[in-house]
């Protein structure tokens, strides 16, 4: 063992010397991440305490896994997990598909000015706060003067106005499409940037090979931005438990859709609100989310590796 270990170690040191410049550059980054992200991790101890702000670390009461027990034994926990995953997956799929498709179509636009205008306009909703966007959504979907209902009735598609905001079956989709509305243009920017790295010669070659417009999109553009897509997909999969907070809270806090609207973040806030355990309970829930994220991340990363794609790590 000892002899065997020597040679990789030697090689390691050899590399270290050879890459001393890279190492030197890395050190400040390491310190930076350590200080700003890892140092505060002592706060995770709160998850095991009956934490009370204002008391010192030594005066806190240790209660073991009580917060986790409360979290996992709560009958509502599984409901909010279902909602969180449901909305997350819808969001993930919708936002990826629409953003990529939008970027591809935008790339096909010929007029430079028109392209810029479309691009600029499409990312504007990203800048409006949820409170304003949600206000618009509920006005548009209202029965009383909402434009969607007016159109549906006028075209005879429905005989009676639809109560969109009060129907549990629609809620996840309303959230999903509102997200698309708000962030499709914004999300497509990264793909537009990635498209620029594709060698224009490839398109010419493809034309000569007889590929049509969609053929080129499918065989050149998409593979060209595939690594970006995969990496973003992996990173976003890690956030699967962050289905959002504000939109569900603003649009979904009425009794008719509460059962399908509450996400884990809302649940944690409600259970913790105004109680001594608020911070601690939130910390425990945060730890749970981190663990889930890490598992999903490693899994996706592995899968990407198996199928020979760009890995995140």
């Amino acid at each position, binding site marked *: 063992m000892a002899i065997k270990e020597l040679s990789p170690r030697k090689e390691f040191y050899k590399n270290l010397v050879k890459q001393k410049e890279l190492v030197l550059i890395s050190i400040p980054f390491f310190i930076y991440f*350590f200080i700003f992200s*890892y*140092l505060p*991790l*002592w*706060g995770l*101890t709160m998850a095991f305490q009956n934490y*009370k*702000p*204002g*008391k*010192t*670390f*030594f005066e806190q009461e240790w209660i073991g896994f009580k917060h986790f027990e409360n979290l996992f034994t709560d009958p509502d926990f599984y409901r909010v997990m279902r909602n969180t995953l449901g909305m997350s997956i819808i969001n993930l799929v919708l936002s990826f598909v629409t953003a990529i498709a939008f970027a591809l179509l935008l790339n096909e636009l010929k007029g430079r000015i028109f392209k810029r205008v479309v691009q600029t306009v499409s990312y504007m909703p990203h800048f409006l706060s949820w409170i304003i966007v*949600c*206000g618009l959504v*509920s*006005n548009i979907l*209202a*029965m*009383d003067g909402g434009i969607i209902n007016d159109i549906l009735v006028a075209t005879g598609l429905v005989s009676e106005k639809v*109560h969109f*905001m*009060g129907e549990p079956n629609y809620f996840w989709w309303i959230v999903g499409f509102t997200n698309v509305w708000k962030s499709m243009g914004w999300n497509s920017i990264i793909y537009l940037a990635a498209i620029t790295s594709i060698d224009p010669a490839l398109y010419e070659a493809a034309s000569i090979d007889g590929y049509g417009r969609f053929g080129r999109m499918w065989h050149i553009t998409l593979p060209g931005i595939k690594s970006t897509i995969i990496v973003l997909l992996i990173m976003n999969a890690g956030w699967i438990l962050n289905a959002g907070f504000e939109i569900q809270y*603003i649009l979904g*806090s*009425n*009794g*008719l*859709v*509460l*059962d399908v609207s509450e996400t884990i973040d809302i649940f944690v*806030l*409600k*259970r*913790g*609100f*105004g*109680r*001594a*355990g*608020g*911070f601690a309970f939130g910390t425990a829930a945060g730890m749970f989310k981190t663990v889930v994220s890490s598992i999903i991340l490693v899994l996706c990363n592995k899968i990407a590796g198996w199928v020979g794609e760009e890995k995140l790590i």
Partner: protein
Amino acid sequence: MKNAKILVLLMVAVMALTALAGCGAPAGKENQPSTTAAAPKEDPKPAEEPAEEKLEPITFSMFVAGPGEVPPEDNKIIKKIQEITGVTIDFEFLVGDMEQKVGIMIASGDYPDLIGAGQARGRFLNAGSFVALDDSLPNYPNLWKHYEPFMDRLRSVSEDGKTYILDIWSRQYWLNDGEDDFYEADYNGPAFWIQKDVLAWDGYSYPKTPDQFFDLLERYYAAHPTIDGQPTLPFEVHSQDWRSFCLKNAPQHLIGGRNEGDVVVDPDTLEVEIYQNKDYAKDYYGKLNEAFKKGLINPETFTRNYDQYLSVISTGRVLAMFDQQWNFQDGEFVLINEGKINRTYVPLGISYSGELVSYNRVKNEGIIGGNGMGISTKCKDVERALKFMDTLLEEDVHRLLYWGIEGEDYYVDNGRYRRTPEQKANFDNPDWRLANAGLVIGDQFPKLEGRYSNGNSTGAATQPEERLENQFPYDKEFYGKYGFYTKSDFLPVMEHPGYPEVWSIFSTMEEDNVAKPVFDQITDLQNRYLPGVIMSNDFDAAWTEYANRYESIDYPALEAEVERQIQERKTK
């Protein structure tokens, strides 16, 4: 990989060290409420001659756990207050999530000098953030006069029986000359509010029971299916978020109670019961269910957000709702602006028995306790802060805050304070007020309510002459038909039952109280199920399911806790 392991070990060690240092340092001794700082000093007649010596300028930082707007520095009243007291208040109002902001403040001990406790009072009290004021208060004549009769209430809020929070509302001064009633503000609390036009159409009737009430709505609706070309909305049940009191609070009044929030209190035995699962609640929701089936309640009422709720009210086509007037007054404002006075609302004292009940029109009994501000343990000069508040209670200073400067903001006519239409218009404009009036200070500190010793009202809005002059001819005629003076008269006045309103107990409840999770559970259950119950095809089945779920919650624990606290705080 081996290197990585060493690194990890190293990191853990460093982290542990900083953790101990990090949280050990900030807390510590300052967090104990220091009574020494507040101990009475030899300070003869502190506030008696405020202008005698030039006071050293001092700035107090103040955090208010509620919304608000910081006034501009050149606000003329605030400048005047600075001249008189030497004190500048540096306000910070809550912007985001209170839990996070207050939690950080408590954990770090980085308190401002003064704290408007608002809804966070329980947390601040629990953390010992305030200086006890029992020993110092008697040294300040105005403050002492203000609080002395209510010291029990102030003390009852804290666990150790000391005074930490000074109430800023509800200390009323009356002259008992038989005219006090005219100085009471218009009723703006909970009731079944109905459009004046509906009553006028019915020959100025007064429905007294839920049946008569919904019957009237049904008849009016049949006769007026649209208002101004848009569909009439006979009854709105707003149920969004914390405003769901519009959905839930009616049953307690229908059996004659005051607004206690989520419980009813037996006035004789002071026993408490949760009412959302009782038969008298079932009767009410049954009525709503009936009304829903008749089309008197639009399903969209349950999904309207607050803006949309105000918007439908402002169109004048909502005939009635159960609500508190301050909650819908912005919609009513629009109606007034457009001269649709007949579409504005009056309260009805409906009850099951048919006997008129007061809803929340209760004779004011003074300070509630816990509803105010405190001086933090980090305050740079406790005595000076108290002196400042003492000065604010001088009638001359108070007048600056709530009436303004004589000759500029109001004039005196025969000893009565009056305002020209222009002065009034100024004061009605929120932006003008922020820049030119002293309300920001007045609202956050102890203040006088009721009447000044010279007979005038302590606030322009309740000066009787002004109110009468401003009454619309429609209103004069409308109220006249009933023999009333204002809309408040639609409700009889109730004697104060001698214990604080229970919702104030909920909001001062210590944060680790066992009753708190129970309270959250019932609130959640009610918000989740009641709209469905009202819209249900099979009301009895829906109600039974709801009531069964209710039984799985340990609500007697909440009842017991509230009972205990009422006993502690009732008038002795």
